[in-house]
């Protein structure tokens, strides 16, 4: 079993820049073992601060019981999280934001992932994290929800995939991949 990273509170993390506007400050996907699956930062953090935030938050969130609130107050911000199977989806928002809405944004994202991968599981995200990034980029921009229609997101992602298909003819065959994987 991988050890859960301990909470450490000594140093201070730089406060986030944007205070007056509501926005999502970062998106974090962490497995139940505390492994990072995806991170997207909409507010500036240094690499060091990022690791610290991840360590601190996974310590808080992974240890929470199942029936508690899906929200955690953290350094004056709120982190909304939801667990899907073994994966925790977390979003950090301002204290004055609508938590239930953000919870649904997470679910919205998961539904789109699900539609794209076809009953998505953690492994899909592990090996195709860049795909998850592309989808997230169609959903959120600069920490704001830019598109709330699943269909629209699906359409643009599949257009991108077709473009990718067209762009590379070489070495796309299944046999090649099987050879690579085994």
């Amino acid at each position, binding site marked *: 079993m991988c050890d859960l990273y301990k909470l450490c509170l000594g140093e201070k993390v730089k406060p986030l820049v944007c205070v007056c506007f509501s926005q999502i400050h970062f998106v974090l996907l962490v497995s139940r073992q505390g492994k990072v699956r995806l991170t997207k930062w909409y507010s500036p953090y240094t690499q060091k601060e990022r690791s610290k935030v991840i360590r601190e938050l996974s310590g808080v969130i992974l240890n929470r019981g199942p029936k*508690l609130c899906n929200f955690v107050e953290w350094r004056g911000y709120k982190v909304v999280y939801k667990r899907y199977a073994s994966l925790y989806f977390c979003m950090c928002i301002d204290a004055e934001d609508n938590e239930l*809405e953000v919870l649904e944004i997470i679910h919205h994202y998961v539904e789109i992932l699900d539609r794209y991968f076809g009953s998505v599981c953690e492994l899909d995200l592990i090996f195709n994290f860049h795909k998850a*990034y592309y989808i997230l980029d169609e959903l959120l921009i*600069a920490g704001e929800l830019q598109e*709330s229609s*699943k269909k629209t997101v699906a359409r643009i992602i599949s257009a991108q995939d077709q473009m990718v298909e067209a762009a590379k003819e070489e070495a796309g065959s*299944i046999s090649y991949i099987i050879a690579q*994987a085994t």
Partner: protein
Amino acid sequence: MEQLKTIGRELAMGSQGGFGQSKEFLDLVKSIGESRSKAEEDRIVLSEIDILKRKLLEPDVPKRKMKEYMIRLVYIEMLGHDASFGYIHAVKMTHDDNLLLKRTGYLAVTLFLDEDHDLIILIVNTIQKDLRSDNYLVVCAALNAVCRLINEETIPAVLPQVVDLLNHGKEAVRKKAIMALHRFHRKSPSSVSHLVSNFRRKLCDSDPGVMGATLCPLFDLISEDVASYKDLVSSFVGILKQVTERKLPKSYDYHQMPAPFIQIKLLKIMALLSSGDKSASEMMYMVLGDLFRKCDSSTNIGNAILYECIRCISCIIPSPKLLEDAAEAISKFLKSDSHNLKYMGIDGLGRLIKISSDIAEQHQLAVIDCLEDPDDTLKRKTFELLYKMTKSSNVEVIVDRMIDYMISINDNHYKTEIASRCVELAEQFAPSNQWFIQIMNKVFEHAGDLVNIKVAHNLMRLIAEGFGEDDDDADNKLRLSAVESYLQIISEPKLPSLFLQVISWVLGEYGTADGKYSASYISGKLCDVADAYSSDETVKGYAVSALMKIYAFEIASGRKVDVLPECQSLIEELLASHSTDLQQRAYELQALLALDARAVESILPLDASCEDIEVDKDLSFLNGYIQQAIESGAQPYVSERERSGGMFETTDYHSQDHHEVTSHALRFEAYELPKPSVPSQPSAALVPVPEPSYYSEPHQPISTSSSVSERESSEIKLRLDGVKQKWGRPSYQSSTSASSSTPPQAANGTSTHSDGGGVASSSSSKPRSSYESKKPEIDPEKQRLAASLFGGSSSSSRSDRKSSSGGHKPAKGTANKPLATVPKESPIPVPDLLDFDEPTGTSDVAATDPFKELEGLMESSRQDGGGSTDVMGLYSTDASAPVKTTTSVDSLLSELSDSSRGTYHQSQTTKGPNSKEALEKDALVRQMGVNPTSQNPTLFKDLLG
């Protein structure tokens, strides 16, 4: 098994879209997935970094390979390791013509870089090119990068193209262009100020997605300037109505709700627009009412909309019907089993309580359940609610609870917050000074280093100034009780530095004043402190000064001083200290010991920390000396300004002030904005956008004027600083500055107490009985708590106070308003009120001589007490009432400690503690001033209600 599954997945992926990753990459991901500890993961990543570093340096890496390396870099970076060695390759990849690579490159740079990174400048050109691409997917990828990477300096370089894209054929591009402009607006409002009309126009875009995205920038714009968007209220109401009537395409439905995210955004905007605006609010009644009826409260998203409606109603001027709807929604939330909904319910309650204060009463047991819930999040939210509904009748219970919780948590951030809330509530509603000091002790003891230093200064000032009334006896009792409590605490290990400073100061000032403790006992304790915290110079400084005062008082009263051997060794140690401050203090102490009683008395008179010290700022006593020097041929002094004055021709005061600042080495104003940067020039020609208007920012005048006023205010502060005495008596500085900024406050203890006492006794029986009849199985403990928390809510509630203090706030400068309103309502003779008001009227007076006013205040209250027999009568009836209430409160609250019970009687003649924020307190003082003559709590209610 796990591996088989993995391979199966990989095969599936292959057939699905063909993301052909190489074996090495899959192996990397797998081995990281299987690593058993963070250390193992780190080892794997480090070796991967080595491999990538080598491979990236190889000549002629095939493009396909390069793309994969990039994704591996992203992966490493995601795991928290430094991949900066590969950033430049990511930048290079964005230049590639191959779409696949370009897209990967953009993904990598948006994840690697932020807007201040040095490499940004290398990407701007590529972005410019890609924004003009024929392929809309390339444009989208570039716009994604724009939203993440373009900073204030580079906005002009891409702005024209982004504006062009607002009319692009593809809605995905229009949407992203809107978001990019929104981003620019946040980064630098002036750069897009001339483009704001575009947002309004895009609200009518044919695509609902674009319309939805436009709401984001509009929300920002409206929150900055509500007035100029009032005309949009009807459009927003119209849009919301259409959305709720399912006029949008089916694809925007989410869990059977029509476009809920757009609904929520619209509600947020409308709350901004209609806040405090009756007519705008009225336009929304219909649609809000519809929402309450239509929202499906069984789904999460439905509840999200309901919650947003509640928030909206708490901002606008609601109709009674809407308030009812909101209250009903809240009670549904609170009764739910879901913690999330309970949380939202508590939050909604906190919002609505501002509008109708009795709404909490029906939910008191639910609130108490939440307070005792093991879920920390819910608990904190409930504390926030309690904080909002604190009043003098329940302050003791609430603050006790808060402190218990504060002690139990480790989260420093929240600890600071809850400590400052405790202090604020205690300052505002303290029933007695003893209670206040006890609370302060607890806060300092458990969160000492997290408390603002002002709080410590306030506490010292309170102890020094006493009650501001003509009651030396009570003052002395207060000091003695403070000294006693500190002598108990002082021997505990590891006290916070700030608390030790307060303790040392109080022991120095008042440790021997009462005669109960001998000088050698107190000085021994002080030496122990200095020894135990020998690394903390501030504490040591306070301790030495306290020693000096104790010895001075001894000498002045004619007693012989025996310096304890440990004190002697402490002094000797400090005489050789590396800290000049400590050394100075030690020398002063040594010198003082050698003086006679008369000299000592004039240096450190007894209990004189509040006396004013006159300082001749012009140093006029030196005039003769200067005259002499000039006569004997010395150069007259030329001020700094005059020395550099050759450059400036100044007459008016403000500009002089300004030049004083500029003549110093540092410039605090921003430089003027740069002229349009070079790359924008060619592209600007393509777009009919007036270049110069980028820089005509409307915000500038505001910011400069505010900085001028800041400079002025800071200058005033500087003058005050000149007065302070640097050495010897640390108390002086704090008490001067604090009391000059805070108008003294009198007689609120009386009012809060009589008010709170009466209410508590009546309320403790009433609500309890009603609940007993309803739910007999409820834990009596909880009922008691509920009664003590909610009992007095019918009297003056905190929100009432807030709103009325808000009303007084703007009047601070002029002091006309309070004069006009208060006498009308209050039975207190007008001249007394005038006395109260004077100190706040002109801040200059307060700044120059704070203590004069204090004396005036004391006099006025003396007149008050002696002059009218009514007031005396009130006191005598009061004296019996509190005894009753204390016993009843006692039975309710076993937590209340003995000492506070003992002090309860006294509180009627005490004034509440002074607090930090002058304005709010000022308003409070006036409210309190109203109270003592009104025995009848309903009068108070009428005044505020």
